[in-house]
């Protein structure tokens, strides 16, 4: 087996509140207010992912899942510890890719594909497939700033799945998509998983995690809480016990397929 993602004692520190100008800093210093207030969004996280594994990354809001994905895809660097990956990485972080709000969908599509490492030739070959997958119709010509969150996610996901990546990151991709699109995404992600690529899937929906993943990692306030079987992980998070006061289940909330 080859290691695909390796984390050793990874820590990421964030500052709670920033001062944007010299004046703000001086004023804060003069008043004796702390100029920086730091906390660990991720603390001492270590795990190893083999190539071809599909990991379900779970945890409550603010537990550091998106932060972890940002470090895996190289946007952020850990403050402490080592993080190594093998091969190309593509995917979505926090429901959307990085899009330029003033540019049209088409322009963003091309730019995004290039940033993810597609060559001009590769893009030419896949352009029609991407457009077909996103299925945005004429909206593709409009500036992305005017897109609904679902439309933005569709475009981002369409580009990301067409990159020949070795590692695919999916952060709440299904959260904003409509039902047909969610079905299409699930199918595509299963394909990715079955083709032997490494998949890291972030979701709050236990059913889809169980369907997709062979292993679950749970983050708790930035620390590794659980690492193992999906069923046990979901139980650890207490996502398997239906809310007694409120009988609305996952399925009814439309968070699942």
């Amino acid at each position, binding site marked *: 087996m*080859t*290691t695909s993602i*390796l984390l050793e004692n990874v820590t990421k520190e*964030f*500052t709670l509140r*920033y001062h*944007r*100008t*010299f004046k703000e800093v001086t004023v804060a210093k003069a008043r004796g207010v702390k100029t920086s207030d730091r906390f660990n969004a991720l603390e001492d996280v270590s795990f190893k992912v083999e*190539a071809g594994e599909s990991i379900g990354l779970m945890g409550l809001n603010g537990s550091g899942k998106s932060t972890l994905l*940002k*470090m*895996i*895809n*190289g*946007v*952020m*660097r850990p403050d402490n510890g*080592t*993080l*190594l*990956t*093998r*091969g*190309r*990485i593509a995917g979505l*972080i*926090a429901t*959307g*890719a*990085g*899009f*330029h*709000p*003033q*540019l049209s969908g088409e*322009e963003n599509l*091309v*730019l*995004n594909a*290039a*940033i*993810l*490492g*597609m*060559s*001009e*030739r*590769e893009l030419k070959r896949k352009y029609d497939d991407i457009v077909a997958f996103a299925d945005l119709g004429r909206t593709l010509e409009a500036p992305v700033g005017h897109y609904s969150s679902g439309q933005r996610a569709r475009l981002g996901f369409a580009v990301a799945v067409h990159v*020949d990546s*070795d590692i695919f990151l999916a952060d709440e991709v299904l959260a904003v998509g409509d039902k047909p699109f969610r079905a299409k995404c699930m199918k595509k992600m299963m394909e990715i998983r079955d083709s032997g690529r490494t998949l890291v899937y972030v979701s709050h929906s236990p059913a889809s995690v169980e369907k997709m993943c062979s292993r679950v990692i749970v983050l708790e306030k930035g620390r590794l809480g659980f690492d193992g079987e999906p069923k046990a992980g979901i139980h650890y998070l207490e996502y398997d016990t239906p809310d007694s006061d409120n009988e609305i289940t996952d399925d009814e909330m439309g968070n699942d397929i």
Partner: protein
Amino acid sequence: MTDIATDDLSRNPEDIPLKPPSADNGLFAVFQRHYLLRLLVQREISARYQGSFLGLMWSYINPLTQFFIYWFVIGFLFQLHKDLPNFPIHLFSALILVHFFNETFGAGTRSIMRNKALVVKMAMPREMFPVATMLVSLYHVVPQVVVLVIACVLSGWTPDAVAVVCLVLALLIIAAIGLSGALLFSAANVFFRDFGNIVNVLTNFVRFGVPMMYPYAMVHDRFGRFADYYLLNPLADAVVLFQRAFWVPTISDAEMAELEARGDVIMPDNLLTHGFVALAFCLVLLAFSQWVFSRLENKIPERL
């Protein structure tokens, strides 16, 4: 795309090294990913005047109006250049470089903030944005140079090989120093917005620190042997080099004799040496800026 293997699904996973995902950054990576750089430059060119009626024309209107203002005030009202042959060419050649530098420095400093949406979510060498702004500014220099060449030819321009060397040297100096400034300040601007304003103040000084409204001869005359210190400013070197390429070859022999008789030193001695030293200095500065940038870059996405 050269830094990542493409079009190749059948590669052996063992062959790909395990490495930090943000490893391939820096200026070299920027030029390796030329397809992406080209896209960013094209986008920037079309975006700079997006929604404006005259579009690219503004790139000429701006320097041309500045040119007429200076020409009118300095040349016509003050009559400061009665004895300076072809003063408009002297002025315009300097103005092109000043404009190139200010655009690279100013727009480059804002480039990271402006591309915030990409910076916080996509992994890519972030030097890409200042570099793209520099190339866009360079792209806008071209038509201005064409205008300048036409003016020069009409004034009897007889360029030599040295002129070509000077031209290239001047552009390289400005590109390198503009890019260093853009790298340093674009990163710093993320942390403190004050840096954006500092840039505005700095660019105001530029036009007075170079021989644009006054000739180099005046510097030499007033400063004497301290004129060499004036030439420690790479921007001044670049402007003098540019004038050596365009303005000096338009001066006729008779005018030249007249200037010499008056004792005017229109060009410094060892101009090319000054130029190469300035370029070397700017490249060192660029390396330093890159080093600082990679230090600050770690924290950029979380502070945006």
